């Protein structure tokens, strides 16, 4: 019966062809390492966010008078099992960003952003950026103290332009305008909540979905990279995507889901922080406001530079450097496995990013600010060293008889 139905569909939609070419004839290198799984995990997490998000959407109310109660009374107490979906959604947001960061670091390590995969990297960066906006807007929705004050701090960041060394008036006016525009007025109110709600539940997820489609297409178009940095002849050396890769990554994905649900059921205190169970109060500034962990590295770069203007420039530069990575690194050699200098700088990058994130949670004492500057320098050093390393590697490459 089932076979007949598939036959019927196949005659019209040619699904068997599609399956054969996309799943079986599509060949991948045999030596893919564990970190290659993070892309798949990101996809799974996206599905988790969409499903849990739609359930939350049925009960959440985007008006200040009701937002907090709809999240904490209706969802957490009134509707059976809605708590589960809120837990999944809040943990999912954190897991999503964690997996995306790991995915990006994997891409950097194996220099998977190099030709012919520059576009894949750039689209991936846009996904990362849209994801940050999605998380930021979602975090406002429960309208707790952290939601409110986190957004106040975020919407004030553009005003640091007024510390510009030249054209103070102009820069100040631009910063102020952008800030008011983000808030939808001079204070955060129903208008801001409505906007961020619309962005969070419709525009940003749709954008993400489209970008994911393009990203996956590009991955297929260029073929998957290789941890050894040499492009394989996929006809001869590759293994069929299904079942070789699908079942391996499927098994890892099950492990990932087990870990994810451990947090969902038993360890939510970080993902639904205590301070956010206090309703937003515009008259009561909480003692410690720090952004969510996934923004802390950028925040710490911003905070440890004494001038707000240069801090603003620096953290934007950090984002831009990530975007133009494929062009900073023009070496002919691929993968950190083959590039000792690059490997060393990658370690510097990883340690600096982690240190910046952890420093972002600590009070801004003078020592911490100095440490922040030190690790911010480490972060930028990675990007600035790439052209130099590439230059040296071209030399070695040519000396060994490599060709352009």
């Amino acid at each position, binding site marked *: 019966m089932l076979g007949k139905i598939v036959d019927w569909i196949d005659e019209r939609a040619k699904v068997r062809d599609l399956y054969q070419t996309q799943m079986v004839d599509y060949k991948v290198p045999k030596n893919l390492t564990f970190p290659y799984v993070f892309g798949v995990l990101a996809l799974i997490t996206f599905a988790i966010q969409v499903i849990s998000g739609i359930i939350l959407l049925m009960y959440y109310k985007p008006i200040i008078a009701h937002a907090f109660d709809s999240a904490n009374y209706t969802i957490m107490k009134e509707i059976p099992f809605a708590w589960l979906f809120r837990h999944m959604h809040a943990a999912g947001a954190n897991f999503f960003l964690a997996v995306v960061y790991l995915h990006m670091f994997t891409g950097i390590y194996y220099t998977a952003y190099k030709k012919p995969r520059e576009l894949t990297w750039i689209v991936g960066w846009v996904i990362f950026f849209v994801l940050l906006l999605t998380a930021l807007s979602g975090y406002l929705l429960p309208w707790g103290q952290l939601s409110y004050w986190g957004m106040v701090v975020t919407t004030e960041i553009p005003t640091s332009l007024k510390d510009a060394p030249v054209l103070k008036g102009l820069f100040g006016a631009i910063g102020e305008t952008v800030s008011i525009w983000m808030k939808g007025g001079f204070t955060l109110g129903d208008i801001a909540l409505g906007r961020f709600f619309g962005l969070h539940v419709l525009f940003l997820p749709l954008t993400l979905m489209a970008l994911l489609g393009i990203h996956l297409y590009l991955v297929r178009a260029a073929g998957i990279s290789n941890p050894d940095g040499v492009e394989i002849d996929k006809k001869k050396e590759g293994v069929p995507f299904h079942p070789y890769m699908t079942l391996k990554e499927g098994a890892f994905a099950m492990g990932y889901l087990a870990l994810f*649900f451990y947090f969902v059921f038993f360890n939510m205190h970080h993902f639904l922080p205590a*301070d956010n169970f206090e309703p937003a109060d515009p008259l009561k500034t909480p003692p410690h406001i720090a952004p969510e962990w996934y923004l802390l590295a950028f925040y710490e770069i911003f905070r440890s530079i004494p001038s707000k203007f240069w801090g603003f420039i620096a953290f934007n530069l950090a984002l831009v450097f990530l975007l133009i990575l494929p062009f900073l690194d023009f070496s002919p050699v691929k993968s950190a496995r083959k590039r000792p200098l690059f490997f060393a700088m990658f370690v510097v990058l990883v340690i600096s990013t982690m240190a910046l994130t952890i420093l972002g949670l600590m009070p801004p004492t003078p020592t911490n600010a100095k440490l922040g500057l030190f690790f911010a320098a480490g972060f930028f050093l990675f990007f600035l060293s790439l052209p130099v390393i590439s230059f040296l590697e071209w030399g070695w490459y040519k000396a060994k008889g490599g060709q352009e």
Partner: protein
Amino acid sequence: MSAWDTIKTAFFGGLTFLFFFVIWIYNPFVHHTEYEVPSQMEEIINDPKAAVEGRELFKTMCASCHSVRYDGMYLMSVASKPEFKKILDSFGTLIRIDEKTKEKVMFLPRDVYEAIAMNDLLMLKSSFGKIPPDLSTMYLSRGEGYLYNFILKPQEVLPGTSMPAVMTGQEENTAKIVAYLKSVSEPSKGEKVKRTIMGILVIGYFIAMGFLLWIWRKKLLANMGYGH
């Protein structure tokens, strides 16, 4: 795998694990304030029967200043207004039926409640400098240690606070009130057991499926002649 590969895997894997442990589970670099609760009091706080008594205590000791809207507990002066019952019937939703009194316990949307309570809230504000907060989610945002110590000795925990010390010397009753606030925020014992079982089943399911997929893959690949 060569020795160098093993070192690299251990280094990056270990660093990643350590990093997420610090930011998601326990961060030794930030200051955590701990509030002590004597162990007998802790027992009371965890006792569902104490929570029922705590509700009555709350009504007499705290409801002149605080509401607990998630449990249908409103300011005394508001709840005794003649029109209040009508408002509950028109705008409220049922939370539960009280076991003893068989009365409906109703939830009121915040704007409706604040509109009818406006004068009472403003009066409290003029006496205490601020409106005493609704305590529905206070257990979640402050934790039981803070609540127990604050309610017993407000000035010691939050110097300069305008909350009067109404429970001085009444350790046991304070614990009962905390038990009440806890019962408003936390699922009941039975519900918690259900959630734990559900969690274990879900996690177990995914681990089992992971192993099955792995074994299936091995067999399949062996048949296809791929070795591992």
